[in-house]
């Protein structure tokens, strides 16, 4: 059984974001990079499925600049992935180009049983890579999965939608799952596993090795802006009755939202 997990490296939420002087992108100097938190659910689930299966393997795949990305692949390996594929690309790509790169890299590896991604990455909220990848690999997918029964070759996946409603699907393998909170509790890597991860193999390639180029993108982001300064908060004073009366008045007459 061969499983792939696709991860993205994103700025830590606590990181302060600054822009490049020409506003063409963020300034990545000083940014602390982490594995996208939703991808940890994907890694955990893949490793959990692999562990009781003799001979099963999990390969972690990611696209980004090698200099910083290697670190995140090692994190995934310390959590139990067996090997990695690093697609070295410094330019930012749109979702479709990224999905195409990952799909080509996965296809080149031969047969597989399942692919996991996080439901979205917290840098851009796109939520697109999973479904795109499934389409390009010509396999079914279930998105936003918070519960999975993964015995045998027909899996049952619970997909979370609006209003707390859950859509339950049965999916025949090979298939793709996008993981969300609730699916599992990602493990912390132990020190011995962190050491072991350093020796696990990483296959490196570039976009052009895959027959793609960053010029292929169909969507480009530009003209980055910091948010406009917001008006200072109006603190309402007096006892709670006075505060509440003032609030209702302001919501009605000033903000006009009631």
């Amino acid at each position, binding site marked *: 059984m061969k499983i792939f997990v696709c991860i993205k490296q994103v700025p830590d*939420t*606590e990181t302060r*974001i600054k822009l490049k002087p020409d506003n063409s992108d*963020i300034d990545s100097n000083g940014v602390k990079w982490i594995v996208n*938190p939703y991808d940890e659910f994907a890694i955990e689930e893949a490793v959990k499925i692999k562990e009781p299966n003799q001979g099963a393997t999990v390969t972690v795949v990611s696209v980004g600049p090698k200099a910083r990305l290697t670190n995140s692949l090692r994190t995934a390996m310390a959590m139990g992935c067996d090997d990695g594929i690093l697609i070295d690309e410094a330019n930012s790509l*749109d*979702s*479709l180009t990224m*999905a195409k790169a990952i799909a080509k890299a996965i296809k080149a590896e031969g047969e597989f049983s399942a692919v996991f991604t996080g439901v979205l990455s917290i*840098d*851009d*909220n*796109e*939520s*697109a890579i*999973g*479904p*795109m990848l499934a*389409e390009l690999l010509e*396999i*079914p*997918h*279930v998105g936003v999965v918070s519960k999975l029964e993964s015995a045998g070759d027909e899996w049952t996946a619970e*997909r*979370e*939608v*609006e*209003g*707390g*409603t*859950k*859509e*339950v*699907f*049965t*999916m*025949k393998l090979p298939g793709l799952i996008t993981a969300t*909170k609730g699916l599992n509790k990602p493990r912390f890597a132990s020190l011995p596993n962190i050491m072991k991860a350093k020796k696990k193999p990483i296959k490196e390639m570039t976009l052009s090795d895959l027959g793609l180029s960053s010029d292929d993108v*169909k*969507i*480009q*982001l*530009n*003209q*980055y*802006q910091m*948010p406009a300064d*917001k008006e200072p908060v*109006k*603190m*309402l004073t007096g006892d*709670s009755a006075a505060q*509440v009366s003032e*609030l*209702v008045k*302001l*919501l009605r007459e000033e*903000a006009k*939202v*009631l």
Partner: protein
Amino acid sequence: MENILVVAELQNGSLKKGTKELLSSLVGKGKTISAALAGEGADSIKEELQKYGVTQLFNQASLTQYNPTSFTQFFAEAIKQSGANLVLASSNAMTKDVLARVAARLDAGFINDCTELSFDGGIHLRRPMYSAKCSAGVNLKLEGTSIVLMRANQLPVLEGTESSTCEIKALDAGTENETLKVKDIIKGESEKLDLTEADRIVSGGRGLKEAKNFEMLEELANVINATVGASRAVVDSGWVPHSMQVGQTGKTVAPSLYIAVGISGAIQHLAGMSGSKVIVAINTDENAPIFQKASYGIVGDAFEVVPKLTEQLKASL
């Protein structure tokens, strides 16, 4: 970008607000507009669509339950037949999932979570980035098709004044196969608008002390027709389900009014709600970071302030 397809969605038999927002952005812009509806209700929205100048509605009434396989086939076919070079949809669980897949099938550009859209001259699009710490302009390639998903509650709703004739085109492109089947639907308890679509939200955090005190927020929410949300701290404590979590690892919301009760305003919470138009913070700690993002702040005890607020609003609405 002259030929546009809008993904139509229904609520209680008429067009959903998110769909109306998209159609409103096209009013008076001289575009050729098609719409696509998966599921029943084509007849009930036909008239509304005509007022917005929609000339054809692609529909497959049999698609009553979401399945990525059949919905991908349907939308891909509708887009192809319409010849649209721009597809607009309101971003939600269904559209995000299916249209990303459609984009891969049609080799189309795809961008989600946009918050600004206008058609003055060309198309103007922006979206928040990095949990709304900054924003970026979005450039679409002009050749080929682009699929753009807008966050709900970002655009004004205008009344349509056109008098086009809208032809319903029945498709049967969407079929399921044995690789992916819907087994069950577990209905959520909430009949309220989902957080991502709500125009008013009352959210509670650890300051509420225990699960049953969320009832106090429910009462306030009922009076102003709001949906109740929560911080991660209370979701992790098991007081409320994850579907109610607002923030970086919960829902991204953008209502006109967001009332944060007993929420400190951690950066991961702000990431999910700082796009709200008006933010009210009620917190005992005058130094809570939430006040820096708030429009109006009340330093006070939630158990005193919230019932009074509910009473006043009840009396005056």
